[in-house]
């Protein structure tokens, strides 16, 4: 039972990260109907920014500022930096193609993803970098019940993710920007006719979605220590799965999907074998798509003629 609970906690931790990335996919898909393949790489960039913040403040063993402040800085810089990068990518690569055939921005997104990965590879090399979290957030903290360990970083990840998701839900449901975002995702042309600044709303969506991915990247570094330039691809793919399982375009769906994929992955690793984790996760996705192509919480899109 303890083993099960432990795997569940691990799964929820991993799942929260997937959910945060999936949210970005889903939001961008909502407003632009574009699968942003570069999203996973934004997550990687976030992880790198977090790493360099640690180095900036003296490295993991000799921090010059208190840990909570450090984590705050990491979140702010990674969120802001990656958010800005997301906006720049939208402006540079996707905006000119907004009215092009559907396949054109998809292929551009592949190119952006590839460019980001290799630009980072050129800048920082292929070697793994280590957050070395245990040097400043000791493992002994957190909750320990019998053999069940929930360490501080896991609590941090879960709490921050829940807070961000709650904030996002409020933003989309209550604020003016949220209303505009919903309007644009419903019908872009009509929204434009009603006086909504569509360019601004899309840029804001990219900023928020990318910032979430950046923060998720930092938390990935904190929780799993090792970061490298190609980490974005597979994480992006899993988050993709999460967004699709939940129903792409739906925000609660992305959260649910992320948690499900995280838990499923953790259970497969714990009870079956880590070799087949990816195969089984992909299998779940394919079955899911065949049984219910709109995802768990997705709406069936109306086809307009």
């Amino acid at each position: 039972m303890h083993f099960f609970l432990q795997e569940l906690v691990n799964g929820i931790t991993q799942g929260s990260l997937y959910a945060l990335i999936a949210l970005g996919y889903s939001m961008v898909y909502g407003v632009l109907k574009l699968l942003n393949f570069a999203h996973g790489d934004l997550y990687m960039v976030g992880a790198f920014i977090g790493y360099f913040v640690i180095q900036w403040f003296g490295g993991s063993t000799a921090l010059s500022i208190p840990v909570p402040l450090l984590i705050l800085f990491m979140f702010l810089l990674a969120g802001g930096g990656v958010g800005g990068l997301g906006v720049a990518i939208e402006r540079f690569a996707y905006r000119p193609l907004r009215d092009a055939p559907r396949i054109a921005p998809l292929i551009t997104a592949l190119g952006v993803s590839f460019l980001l990965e290799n630009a980072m590879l050129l800048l920082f090399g292929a070697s793994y970098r280590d957050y070395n979290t245990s040097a400043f957030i000791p493992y002994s903290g957190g909750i320990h019940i019998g053999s069940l360990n929930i360490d501080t970083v896991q609590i941090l990840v879960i709490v921050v993710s829940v807070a961000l998701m709650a904030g996002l839900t409020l933003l989309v449901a209550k604020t003016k920007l949220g209303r505009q975002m919903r309007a644009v995702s419903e019908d872009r042309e009509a929204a434009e006719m009603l006086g909504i600044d569509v360019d601004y709303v899309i840029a804001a969506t990219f900023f928020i979605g990318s910032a979430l991915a950046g923060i998720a990247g930092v938390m990935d570094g904190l929780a799993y220590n090792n970061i490298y330039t190609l980490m974005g691809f597979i994480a992006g793919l899993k988050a993709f799965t999460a967004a699709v399982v939940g129903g792409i375009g739906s925000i609660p769906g992305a959260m649910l999907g992320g948690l499900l994929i995280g838990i499923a992955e953790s259970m497969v690793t714990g009870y079956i074998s880590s070799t087949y984790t990816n195969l089984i996760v992909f299998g779940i996705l394919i079955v899911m798509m065949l049984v219910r192509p709109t995802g768990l919480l997705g709406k069936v899109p109306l086809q307009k003629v």
Partner: protein
Amino acid sequence: MTVEPESPDVGVEQKHDPSVGVDEWVARSSGRREYASGVRGDAQRVFERMGWWPKLAIATAFGAIVPLLLTNDFQLQVGINALLLALLALGLNISVGWAGLLDLGYIAFYGFGAYGFALLSSNQLNAPTGIHFAAYVSLPIIAVGAACLGLIVALPSRRLIGDYLAIITLFFGEAFMEFTNNVAPSKLGGPNGITSIDPIKAFGHQITTNKGYFYFLLILLVLSAAALHLLDTSRTGRAWRAVREDPLAASMMTIPVNRVKLMAFSFGAVVAALAGTVFAAQQINVFPTDFDTPYLILIYAALILGGAGSIGGAIVGGLLLSVMLDGLLRSPTEAGYLFYGVILLTLIVKMRPWRKLIAVLAATAVFGIVVHTIVEAISKSAVAGGPQSTGWIASALHNWVVVPSNPTTAGNIGFVVLLCLCVALRQLKDPLRTVLLVPTLYLAACVWEGVLVAQPSITRQILIGVILIVMMNARPQGLFGARRVEVM
């Protein structure tokens, strides 16, 4: 609104009947294009009047001469890689270019062909003797297998539209990698792959030399191109393009949309699998990493560069990109020719009038000399590095580019600034844009000489990414495709 019927002007070819996906206006305006006078015009006219098979025959003849001109095995290998990429781009063109389905699992079909051939012509299965089929047995088995696999992968496309299909196929590609890496290591070899595969053999003959594989691939490519051309002009080809433009309207016209989509996948899969068999036979061994996502993106880049939707475009794109990346990026000197050549060519094509072009180039030269002098006056070590490449370009640029003795950090900053400048250039309007172009060009040369030349494999990948983005933005029809106009 009345439309003037096209008058049979002198020198204007009556355009063939309107084809699906090409706007009438575009077709007419390209038909109205003036022919150049003199020999060039005659050549142009003859070329346009030529049917498809004389063109193919001429291209084949050129291809057949190439091995006679090559002097060593490395060059032949470059040629084989180029033909393989062209063949793969040709297959990808079916689903992406014609049917408009984004197939991100395409690389798995290539891998399937390679692994299929490897299993049927090595000691892996049925130990200890193994299975050693002749090509006329194994190739049909693989082709049929690939067609079935294509059908299975495409089955979700019956219910999925556009992007969902892309995901499913992407997963399929990833699953193939995972499968070959992890499942049945005694048969598939895991990460170590399958080694010592037989060459392609039939009726007591076998292909053992690179020259042999070059010709085999050439024949395969020509046959595929001819078959695909016939397919393209057939009812199926028209149905594909109708489905690409508007599936709903196509189904209203009683086109069996699902069946047509499945066919596109199957045909693409067969072409890719055949390419895979040749790859396996020529390389003698296959590894899971031969079929990873970067190679898939390379195939996409080739297709997009040449022009999705046209057979000639796919082939030329594949050949061009492969030769460019393999042949030229291997040595820094030749990479330099390529880099400066492409920049110069783009400027010549894009910059009008001529005075502006000359002004920009001169300004860049002066700017470089000034910057170099200033930096040298401040710190000697900041210019101590010199160009990382060799050859006459590098020696010409020696006192022009600023490369510090340890170029990594400065080069990295320069690279990021260069990316920012490129983004800025795109946003700016003309007077400022031309001014900003000067430092951008100079910085590009510095970054090239300082960092990029020293990292050819990463530069290669960056180049592929840039090709995809720039082509999609600036010229989505590719170098050789016809512009499509969206019907609103």
